């Protein structure tokens, strides 16, 4: 075989191989890019799923914490704290009939709030299960919209529960303040009686009672009277407002139908009132701040009075 013949045969073979490779490339390249796109889509689906589940878990966790707090009831003594101010009877008692009748978060209101929190936990749990079974990116993107758009509703359910518990907490503080005032007042009244008549019943056992101590203790107790009235008024106002907000949110949810089948709610006009509801809950929280501050002041005064009465053998 001559050299020319050899190269001609070799180049033919080479040419055939190149042709074959080209054909293979043409045949397989769409498949390769398809499978590449598919893996990008799968990664995106996985990423969305993980984010959605993480956010849903976060919301469920918040709601469960709130529910646990709500399930603990605050016991109220409902004692009448009768405080004498400047020798006249009592501004606390004067307001108390009106206040004490409304100062608790009514059990049916609390039940409604608890039920709402439970409904939202169920709704989110169902949504999480559906998301975990999603197989296409398109479907997952639709769920992502639902999760994002329902945020305000989920947050409102949690805010309502948490604020209700906070209001109940302040009613508890107010109640315990009244109990303590009432008990301290009984001691101070005894001190006053014994300061006037040291031979009165049970006075000898108390120790040496001076009028100065009795007057000072009474004066400090008197100073709590107007603060207690203010706390009572704040509570009356926030409890009334809370009831109205719970009714409004409940009505709004009623208009949405079944929560478990709720999808993308971003265009629902009925949710426009959510901003107002949110502002009202924020206002309640501000009022609670003021009430708590006042409660702290009364508590300090009562500690001081107990310091005075504590020196006697009650």
């Amino acid at each position, binding site marked *: 075989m001559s050299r020319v013949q050899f190269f001609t045969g070799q180049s033919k073979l080479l040419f055939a191989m190149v042709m074959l490779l080209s054909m293979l490339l043409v045949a397989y390249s769409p498949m390769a890019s398809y499978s590449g796109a598919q893996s990008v889509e799968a990664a995106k689906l996985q990423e969305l799923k993980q984010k959605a589940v993480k956010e849903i878990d976060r919301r469920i966790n918040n709601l469960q914490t709130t529910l646990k707090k709500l399930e603990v009831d605050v016991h109220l003594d409902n004692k009448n704290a009768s405080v004498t101010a400047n020798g006249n009877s009592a501004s606390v008692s004067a307001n108390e009939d009106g206040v004490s009748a409304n100062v608790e978060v009514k059990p049916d209101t609390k039940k409604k709030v608890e039920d709402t929190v439970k409904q939202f936990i169920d709704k989110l749990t169902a949504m999480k299960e559906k998301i975990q079974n999603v197989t296409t990116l398109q479907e997952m993107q639709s769920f992502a919209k639902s999760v994002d758009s329902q945020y305000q509703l989920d947050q409102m359910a949690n805010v309502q529960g948490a604020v209700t518990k906070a209001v109940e907490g302040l009613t508890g503080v107010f109640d315990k303040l009244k109990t303590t005032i009432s008990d301290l007042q009984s*001691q101070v009244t005894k001190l006053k009686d014994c300061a006037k008549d040291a031979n009165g019943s049970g006075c000898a056992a108390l120790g040496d009672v001076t009028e100065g101590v009795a007057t000072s203790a009474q004066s400090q107790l008197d100073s709590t009277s107007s603060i207690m009235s203010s706390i009572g008024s704040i509570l009356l106002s926030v409890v009334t407002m809370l009831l109205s907000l719970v009714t409004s949110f409940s009505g709004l949810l009623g208009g949405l139908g079944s929560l478990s089948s709720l999808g993308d709610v971003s265009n629902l006009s009925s949710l426009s009132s959510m901003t107002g509801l949110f502002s009202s809950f924020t206002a309640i*929280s501000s009022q609670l701040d003021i009430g708590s501050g006042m409660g702290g002041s009364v508590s300090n005064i009562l500690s001081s009075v107990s310091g005075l009465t504590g020196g006697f053998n009650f």
Partner: protein
Amino acid sequence: MDPVSAPAPKKSRRLLWIGVAAVVVVLIVALVAYLVIGNSKKDVATEASPSPTPEATVATKDEVKQDLAVLDATIKQASTDHTAAKAALKDQSSQIKVGN
């Protein structure tokens, strides 16, 4: 038989009935009067001798100590609950936006 003296028993019977009715009326009036006067006398008696008021109970040192301890715990719990409510109101900052 004397025809003129015949209506006499009828008249006396009517008088008898009037007498009986008068006695019944008097008895009813007396009964009502007794009930009214008796009740008012009872009221006066109740007003005149009210039940003795019990001496006001005075809280013991331990009771006040207990009150202050419960008050302190209640204030702390209320403060925790209120902090949770504030956190719920500011939850937006923790939200994970899924669709982005």
